[in-house]
């Protein structure tokens, strides 16, 4: 089997080392074509590979049956096209695959998923180890040229090899490359080669594919036409030198949401000075896009500017208005005092692009029949993108996704290509998709690779599973959940044991039994981090088979669980704690009148349930208390066992100054709030009641939650402050919801090791990797929360769309310098109300930070004041619909024309959970 071997020499950076590697060439690598009788398929049940009769799309260029063979650049840039279900029977060479792997990890992952999809008939051919397709690098040949040649040799081999199959129909291999020299060389060697554009355009039956072509090839053409707008980017090697020597600074580029001509660069590292650099003006921004890692050069001090407070939106349709731009830039340069100036710089080069596909809408070109259009992303920080499409008419008014391909120096806007149509704007499905994408919530269907790790159905508990497990099926276990809940991850039992004590058990779904560390299922779950609950949709962290069936502790079926069992006396003092993996059979699934309803959507009327009437049920707090207890017990156990790498959750105490606003606000109502400790705070909140103003207590609690910090996951080896402020617990973790939170799975694994039911694996005992994972989990939780809020906001808008203008009571939550933040209890809706507006005379505003109060003309606003507002939907901008409010009572005297104020409101729901549960502290922790 081993035919020959050659030596590959390599030098590494730094010292020159001669590395000798073996390279075996083989003669048993199959070509992957199903019709081929010469090659014996390697191993039974291997990938299906290429079809015997390639059923690709009809092409006018090559009418016969054919396979496609793309080169590296094509694969990197046109992955969107290759992923289209129309494209089938593609040979991906190992050379190409390796190059892709080095150059772009995301594309590599995508192409691998495609190869693994049996319906796409992609085949990866190991040409570098095939005796007849391996070539050595020639003297003077760059490795790029060598790889190009290797690809051509492989194409040639394929063509000759397929001729030998002696089938009636000859299958041709078509080489796709966008590199002209490579194509010419291929044609010289007698290979059929096309550029991607040529091929895709020849697909007569699928004209829509053309739009998805990335327009990288245009770059060459455009250099001639149009004048250069932007300075050149300095190459990476020089940038790195410059960063080392301190000429340039490396940082993350953050575009300004309000002003497209301004951005901030957050410099990496821990330098005290120049942490935040302002970049102003089109030329200085130099084609950087939000989230890119860039190198900036500081300008001389006399060129420094102050952050502008102007709102500027890029609305130019024409590209030739450069002069216009300069005018706009001048607006920014308002004279300001010296101490307002901030370090200012200009972008000299891009270190890493962080482009992703962007959601947005097409701004159709005014010119009829034009194929080039501008695309306006939903995120205002992203510049508009020029795309080429023939379906502008159909895409108008739709939410679409566009990917950026490049930004040539002579182009005002980056070039991109159309990726996907999400559906019409304002549509529920579409908007949900958009908000998921914009909050970076991974929500694609689980890939084949992931699903392959699911247990095979019908599933039953085997002898193997019973190892290390206690049989607790005889216990009367029950679960308590809100109605309609399908992912039940906790259950309880309680019984008297002989000695007069009680045995209480919390049983948690044993998800870590099904999700083994390191496999694709595990990786997908850790990437998702959490299940995201939207108003009408749930984005699962683990596939449904697990979340709603095998892991869900439903009644009257045997389920695997992880149990935490205490022995308690009747005073509820814990005498003994033990943990075990178990098998349980829940006797009954109890439901409770849901206290979690925040926005119960009636599909007919979009009516939200009146949130104030719902009260916390005792059952719920009982379940909660036991879950908290289990979490604390487990946290202590895993920390004792693994002081270096326990995954814990902490909630830092807020700095005392955070409470100032709360104390002041309470004082204005003659109430005292003590904030020295969490306990004192809770007690003083309990006492803070006003007989004439029953809602005051709730308002105070809402205000208190706003003063708090975010709770976060962390690795015990990397931190020394473990305290959980909200729960007043010295240690805490998440153990009880492994179906919807990944952190719990890690905690399960740690606990399983601690009790000897499972073994560790390298990643689990690496605190740096764990810390990294915590960072991702915290990010995912934050994004999930934002997505949730956005979803609620969207549904609120839907609701008010049908209601028209609504007049409601509201309370002032905060008073700001130019606005008040109000809460409308009936809808749990919160909004910021500005007193300044464009094109309207500004009323006289006077802000007193001591009380705090805001005087608008003659009217004084205090925190907790009751006002009346009109709520309506402002849909003047279809991409950014928002709630608008009109202050009705008390009437503010208008400076001039007494037309009602149009006050903007940032809609924001506060969940019932937060309000009522603050005492038992769930949502924010």
């Amino acid at each position: 089997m081993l035919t020959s071997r050659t030596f590959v020499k390599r030098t590494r950076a730094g010292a020159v080392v001669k590395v000798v590697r073996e390279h075996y060439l083989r003669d048993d690598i199959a070509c992957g074509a199903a019709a081929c009788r010469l090659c014996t398929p390697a191993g039974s049940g291997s990938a299906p590979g290429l079809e015997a009769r390639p059923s690709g799309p009809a092409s006018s260029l090559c009418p016969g049956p054919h396979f496609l063979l793309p080169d590296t650049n094509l694969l990197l840039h046109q992955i969107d096209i290759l992923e289209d279900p129309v494209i089938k029977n593609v040979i991906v060479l190992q050379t190409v695959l390796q190059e892709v792997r080095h150059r772009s990890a995301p594309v590599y992952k995508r192409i691998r998923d495609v190869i693994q999809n049996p319906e796409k008939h992609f085949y990866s051919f190991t040409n570098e180890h095939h005796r007849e397709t391996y070539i050595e690098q020639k003297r003077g040949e760059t490795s790029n040229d060598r790889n190009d040649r290797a690809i051509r040799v492989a194409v040639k081999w394929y063509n000759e090899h397929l001729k030998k199959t002696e089938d009636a129909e000859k299958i041709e291999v078509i080489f796709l490359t966008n590199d002209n020299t490579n194509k010419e060389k291929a044609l010289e060697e007698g290979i059929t080669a096309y550029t991607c554009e040529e091929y895709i355009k020849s697909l007569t039956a699928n004209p829509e594919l053309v739009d998805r072509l990335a327009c990288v090839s245009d770059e060459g053409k455009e250099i001639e036409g149009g004048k250069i707008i932007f300075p050149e980017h300095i190459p990476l090697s020089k940038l790195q030198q410059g960063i080392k020597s301190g000429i340039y600074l490396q940082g993350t580029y953050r575009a300004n949401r309000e002003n497209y001509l301004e951005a901030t660069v957050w410099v990496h590292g821990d330098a005290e000075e120049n942490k935040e650099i302002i970049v102003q003006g089109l030329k200085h921004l130099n084609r950087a896009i939000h989230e890119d890692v860039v190198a900036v050069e500081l300008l001389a001090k006399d060129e420094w500017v102050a952050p502008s407070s102007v709102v500027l939106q890029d609305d130019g349709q024409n590209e030739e208005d450069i002069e216009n731009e300069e005018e706009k830039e001048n607006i920014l340069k308002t004279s300001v005092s010296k101490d307002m100036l901030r370090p200012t710089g200009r972008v000299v080069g891009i270190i890493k692009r962080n482009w992703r596909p962007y959601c947005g809408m097409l701004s159709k070109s005014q010119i009829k029949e034009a194929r080039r259009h501008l695309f306006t992303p939903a995120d205002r920080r992203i510049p508009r993108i020029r795309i080429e499409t023939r379906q502008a008419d159909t895409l108008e008014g739709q939410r679409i996704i566009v990917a950026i391909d490049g930004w040539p120096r002579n182009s005002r806007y980056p070039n991109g290509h159309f990726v996907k149509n999400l559906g019409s704007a304002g549509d529920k499905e579409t908007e949900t998709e958009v908000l998921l994408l914009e909050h970076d919530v991974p929500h694609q269907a689980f890939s084949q690779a992931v699903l392959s790790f699911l247990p095979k159905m019908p599933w039953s508990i085997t002898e193997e599973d019973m190892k290390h497990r206690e049989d607790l099926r005889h216990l009367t276990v029950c679960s308590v959940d809100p109605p309609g809940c399908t992912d039940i991850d906790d259950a309880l039992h309680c019984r008297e044991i002989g000695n007069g004590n009680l045995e209480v058990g919390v049983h948690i779904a044993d998800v870590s039994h099904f999700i083994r560390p390191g496999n694709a299922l595990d990786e997908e779950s850790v990437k998702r981090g959490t299940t995201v609950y939207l108003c009408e949709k749930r984005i699962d962290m683990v596939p449904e088979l697990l979340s709603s069936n095998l892991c869900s502790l439903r009644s009257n079926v045997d389920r695997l669980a992880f149990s935490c069992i205490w022995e308690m006396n009747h005073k509820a003092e814990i005498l003994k704690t033990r943990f075990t993996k178990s098998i349980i059979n829940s006797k009954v699934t109890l439901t409770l009148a849901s206290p979690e309803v925040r926005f119960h959507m009636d599909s007919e009327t979009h009516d939200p349930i009146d949130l104030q009437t719902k009260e916390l049920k005792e059952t719920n707090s009982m379940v909660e208390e036991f879950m908290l207890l289990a979490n604390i017990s487990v946290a202590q156990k895993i920390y004792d066992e693994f002081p270096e790498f326990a995954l814990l959750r902490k909630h830092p105490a807020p700095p005392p100054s955070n409470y100032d606003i709360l104390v002041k606000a309470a004082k204005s109502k003659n109430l005292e709030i003590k904030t020295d400790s969490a306990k004192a705070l809770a007690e003083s909140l309990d006492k803070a009641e006003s007989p004439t103003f029953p809602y005051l207590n709730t308002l105070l609690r809402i205000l208190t939650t706003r003063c708090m910090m975010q709770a976060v996951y962390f690795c015990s080896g990397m931190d020394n402050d473990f305290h959980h402020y909200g729960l007043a617990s010295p240690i805490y973790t998440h153990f009880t919801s492994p179906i919807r939170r990944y952190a719990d799975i890690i905690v399960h694994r740690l606990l399983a090791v601690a009790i000897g039911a499972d073994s560790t694996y390298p990643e689990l005992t690496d605190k740096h990797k764990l810390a990294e994972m915590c960072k991702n989990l915290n990010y995912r939780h934050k994004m999930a929360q934002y997505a949730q809020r956005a979803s609620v906001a969207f549904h609120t808008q839907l609701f008010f769309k049908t209601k028209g203008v609504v007049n409601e009571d509201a309370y002032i939550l905060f008073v700001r310098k130019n606005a008040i933040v109000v809460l409308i209890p009936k809808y749990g809706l919160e909004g910021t109300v500005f007193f300044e507006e464009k094109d309207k005379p500004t009323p006289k505003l006077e802000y007193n930070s001591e009380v705090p109060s805001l005087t608008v003309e003659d009217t004084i606003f205090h925190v907790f004041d009751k006002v009346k507002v009109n709520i309506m939907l402002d849909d003047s901008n279809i991409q950014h619909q928002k709630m608008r409010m009109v202050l009705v009572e008390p009437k503010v005297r208008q400076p001039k024309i007494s037309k009602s104020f149009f006050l903007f409101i940032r809609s924001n729901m506060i969940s019932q959970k937060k309000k009522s549960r603050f005492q038992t502290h769930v949502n924010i922790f």
Partner: protein
Amino acid sequence: MAGLELVSDAGFRADGRRPDELRKVRARLGVLARADGSAYLEQGNTKVLAAVYGPHEVRGSRSKAPPDRALLCCRCSSAPFAGGGERRRRPPQGGGDRRSGERALLLRGVLEGAVLGQLYPRSQIDVHVQVLQADGGSWASVSAAGLALQDAGVALRGPVVAGSAGLAEPPAGPPVALSDLSAAEEAAGGPRLVVATVAGSGQLALCQLSARLHQERLRPVLDAAQAACRGLHAVLDGV
């Protein structure tokens, strides 16, 4: 995680082997005329030379010689040009670095289990192994020493061969046990299991595991390592 991909989706390792395939093996006996027995073994790019002197009278202090069996003296070294980090941080005086010393100790342990020492009471057998080129598989010195002992006509329970195995965990698909790791694969950081067998008796003379390995995965890796030993034995038998 842009490390080395141990096994590609198509089922090939970085050097073109399938997971269960060994590297190319070449061996010669009696390469050194003055030694009582000698062998030269190539496993892939690993090249090892072994020489055996003895059995002869115990040199130096006789007190350390056991009365009932032979005294085995093992020494390992690697050539300055061996590469693979074999001689890094070597003390200036001869005598070998720590790694060589460790290897000598292991080698002695293995050989003591294989040599029928009771046939040579109060005598000494010297085994010297030199790594000429290193490309993973320091265990090749065990196999080479075994060959040299056979060449010297020392009575053995059976031929001694050593092999290794590791575990690749591709992102998609189940973990795969890899036989006969190369240097690049060793450097990738996965677990490595080295096994030495005394072929005739089917017993393990050495079993060394670096890095943690899930208990449930030990079996396939151990099987792969033993298969590597069997494969090597089959080849060496023909020398």
